[in-house]
């Protein structure tokens, strides 16, 4: 029989920083950088927009808003965004519906293929469209069409293609949740498929639909890459900021438009959050999952539509890929690798810069956003709500606006942090805080799923909050953290609008190179750069997917 007396001595230090002390320390570590790198730069824009030659006032606003051009830009932006929304949302809904509610061959391929726009900077959509439908595009050149793609419709179509995966991801999630019982009841009551769709499917996904509309609208309002490439003489608010600030050094004007762009973004985000809060409780513990039964007509129609949609989405990266391999699109179509020599500008330096910045951003971003999520979820107290608000604040800030804020705040010689201006470090920090809210939310969800009992079990066994984190929480959520890392890496690789104001010749990045090469008409080299960006992103995704697979963590979503 074993002896049950136990002579071990507790060797914990008698003085330990209490959990309250740890909380205060961590809160400070989380909040100070958010103020420095998010709140103050945003204030910077506000201050700049309000400072006139004779002190502070609304002079810049009144003078901007009294011009006809401003209202023309507002009309253009609203018109393009509204059109994009009208194209994207129904198509994405139909595509998500086809994938979730019909039997289609090779669904995983379709699902992945439709997400490819996320692997490239937004301007690649415009780039591909020009190669396809532009003056020297495939259709005009080889099939004898006479399409004019530059301008309103070019932007709307490019935006629609770029926003499609975002819309699809939300709508797909909304359609994935279905309570089989309501469908069975409708069927038993004699409802025909169309009526069931109108009375059961649509109402059950209406929140998802509303949220998607907000997101697509806001993305289009604030997107910069597509309109700058394909807009031609058609200007929108986002391109106007760039032209005013970079082209004409009209900083006050840029600041005013930045504030104006912030309005739809903040409104959209607030409405989205209001709506999502009501989304829950549609599915209860008693719900059963919907089984998709075969229906030949529906399945054929859904398959045809889904494959046509995927073909459309894929046509962009494919034509960019093709253009990167031909000598001179579209005049000399012989295949060549010469565009991959990158003998223009800084050679491959911008590409490597992008990779380094993305690696640094991903690593720092995981640390920063995880720390914020831990402070909010593991150390609940009266400051929690405020910290949580700060953590999700970036979701409502368009990349261009934040980038502009950085210019105003860090380019100020009186700012002690002025030394950061023009450095890689500032690009990394900007990317970390620009994507902070999503990373924070992903980690938060994961932390919430772990539940409180492990924390309590650890506490009762004598573990401090930090011991629990180190030994239990982090080991449990590492796959999610790796997912956040990939998310940061991907977003930073393809980011354009946020960093465009901050890059210098020494800190040139790949996405800006694509823009400048397109601008100069070097479309083949631009295409090669885009292909490299996509290749690196896809390679990183495959690598991390492989690592997760090796460790048996297969259910982590990497593409968001």
């Amino acid at each position, binding site marked *: 029989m*074993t*002896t*049950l007396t*136990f002579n*071990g*001595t*507790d*060797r*914990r230090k008698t003085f330990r920083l*209490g*959990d309250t002390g740890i909380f205060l320390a961590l809160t400070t570590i989380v909040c100070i950088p958010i103020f420095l790198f998010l709140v103050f730069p945003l204030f910077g824009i506000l201050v700049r927009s309000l400072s006139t030659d004779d002190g502070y006032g609304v002079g810049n606003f009144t003078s901007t808003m009294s011009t006809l051009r401003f209202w023309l830009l507002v009309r253009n932006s609203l018109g393009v965004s509204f059109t994009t929304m009208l194209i994207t949302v129904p198509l994405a809904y139909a595509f998500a519906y086809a994938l979730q509610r019909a039997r289609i061959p090779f669904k995983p391929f379709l699902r992945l293929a439709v997400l490819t726009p996320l692997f490239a900077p937004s301007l690649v959509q415009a780039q591909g469209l020009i190669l396809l439908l532009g003056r020297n595009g495939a259709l005009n050149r080889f099939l004898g069409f006479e399409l004019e793609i530059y301008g309103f419709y070019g932007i709307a179509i490019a935006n629609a293609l770029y926003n499609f995966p975002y819309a699809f991801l939300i709508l797909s999630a909304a359609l994935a949740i279905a309570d089989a019982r309501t469908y069975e009841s409708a069927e038993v009551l004699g409802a025909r498929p169309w009526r069931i769709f109108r009375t059961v499917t649509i109402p059950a996904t209406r929140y998802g639909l509303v949220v998607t509309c907000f997101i697509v609208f806001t993305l289009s309002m604030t997107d910069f890459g597509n309109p700058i490439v394909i807009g031609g003489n058609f200007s929108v608010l986002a391109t106007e900021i760039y032209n005013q600030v970079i082209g004409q050094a009209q900083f006050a004007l840029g600041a005013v438009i930045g504030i104006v762009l912030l309005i739809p973004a903040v409104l959209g985000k607030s409405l989205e959050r209001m709506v999502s809060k009501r989304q829950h409780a549609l599915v209860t513990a008693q719900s059963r999952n919907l089984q998709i039964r075969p229906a030949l007509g529906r399945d054929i129609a859904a398959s045809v539509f889904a494959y046509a949609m995927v073909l459309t989405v894929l046509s962009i990266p494919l034509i960019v890929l093709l253009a990167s391999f031909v000598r001179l699109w579209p005049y000399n179509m012989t295949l060549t690798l010469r565009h991959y020599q990158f003998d223009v500008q800084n050679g491959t330096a911008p590409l490597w810069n992008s990779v380094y910045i993305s690696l640094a951003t991903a690593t720092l971003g995981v640390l920063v956003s995880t720390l914020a999520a831990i402070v909010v979820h593991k150390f609940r107290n009266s400051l929690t709500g405020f910290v949580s608000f700060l953590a999700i604040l970036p979701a409502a800030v368009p990349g261009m606006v934040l980038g502009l804020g950085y210019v105003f705040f860090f380019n100020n010689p009186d700012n002690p942090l002025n030394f950061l201006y023009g450095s890689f470090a500032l690009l990394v920090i900007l990317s970390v805080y620009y994507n902070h809210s999503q990373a924070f939310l992903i980690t938060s969800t994961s932390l919430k799923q772990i539940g409180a*009992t*492990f924390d*309590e*079990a*650890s*506490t*009762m*066994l*004598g*573990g*401090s909050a930090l*011991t629990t984190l180190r*030994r*239990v929480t982090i*080991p*449990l959520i590492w796959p999610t953290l790796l997912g956040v890392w990939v998310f940061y890496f991907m977003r930073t690789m393809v980011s354009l609008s946020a960093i465009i104001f901050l890059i210098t010749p020494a800190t040139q990045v790949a996405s800006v190179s694509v823009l400048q090469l397109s601008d100069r008409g070097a479309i083949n080299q631009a295409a090669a750069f885009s292909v490299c960006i996509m290749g690196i992103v896809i390679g990183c995704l495959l690598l991390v997917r492989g690592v997760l697979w090796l460790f048996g963590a297969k259910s982590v979503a990497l593409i968001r």
Partner: protein
Amino acid sequence: MSLVINSLSKHFGEVTALNNISLEVPQGCFVCFLGPSGCGKTTLLRIIAGLEQPDNGEITLNNKNLSQTHASNRNFGVVFQSYSLFPNMTALTNVGYGLRCRRLPKPDIITRSKEMLALVQLQDQADKLPEQMSGGQQQRVALARALAPDPSLLLLDEPLSALDAKVREELRHEIRAIQQRLGVTTIMVTHDQEESLVMADLIVVMNEGKIEQTGTPKSLYEHPETTFVADFIGGMNLLPVRIENGAAYFGDTPVTLAEKTATQNGEGKIGVRPEALTLSAPTNDTAANHIPCEVKSITYLGNLTRVFVSPAAHPELKVTVELHGQSPVPSPGEHLALSFAPEALRLLT
């Protein structure tokens, strides 16, 4: 050497979870907090553990006030309903967790963890992860983990309610045996009266944030003081009676009690266990402890037969009679008399 709870209260918003609870748990005792869900028993356990803070009142252990001691420094072991083994650790590492938190030397941790696994008869499962073990095994590991740092108090929060019936029965006896072997003071929360009768030295029956009655299983079963306790433990027939000049009447039938009858006139209730009732041929209305009744329905349960009858004086009542062995079983509609011994009756508040 005991845990003393003094005037403890706890509110969640408008809801009173605990209302002025005072209690003493003697050293080495196995105490059950028994009550329906929402009675405050889990809240009381969590306050003792230090996972919740009381609004008022204090807890002392061996005369030391615990209010300033953080949960992680109380050296209490807890077993949760949901096992809550760390999914990223093996059985052995789970058991050693508390010892690692106390920074014990590594060899000691391994020796002690193995001993504790042997104590719950899982020495051969040391390298299994929680997901590779059955619910019963996981809960055994959780028990070993809670006991490994030699806690001064063991707290069990409905430890068996997630398990299926057979495993639950086994573990009841095992937990009780281990507790007695180690002599560790233990508090268990449960809503299962059978569980508490089998395992506890002392049962604290709780209802709506208050303690209804505290006592040994036998004393609670045989001498319930309130209708709640009478009904909650073992099931009891409650008969409304009228008290007149020190005598009790059910309808017109005089009822004789072995205990002292309340002297105050008015309404009261007497409780009588189903197995203490017998059915006999009807007699005249006024014979003491003989209540005329009609048989309503019969449920045959193998080792016993339950007969449900309605007394003629209170036809709305359904009184349960349990007949064992070879007793003759009546038929529905028969008119009989319920009879009972004065010793079997309890006057309840």
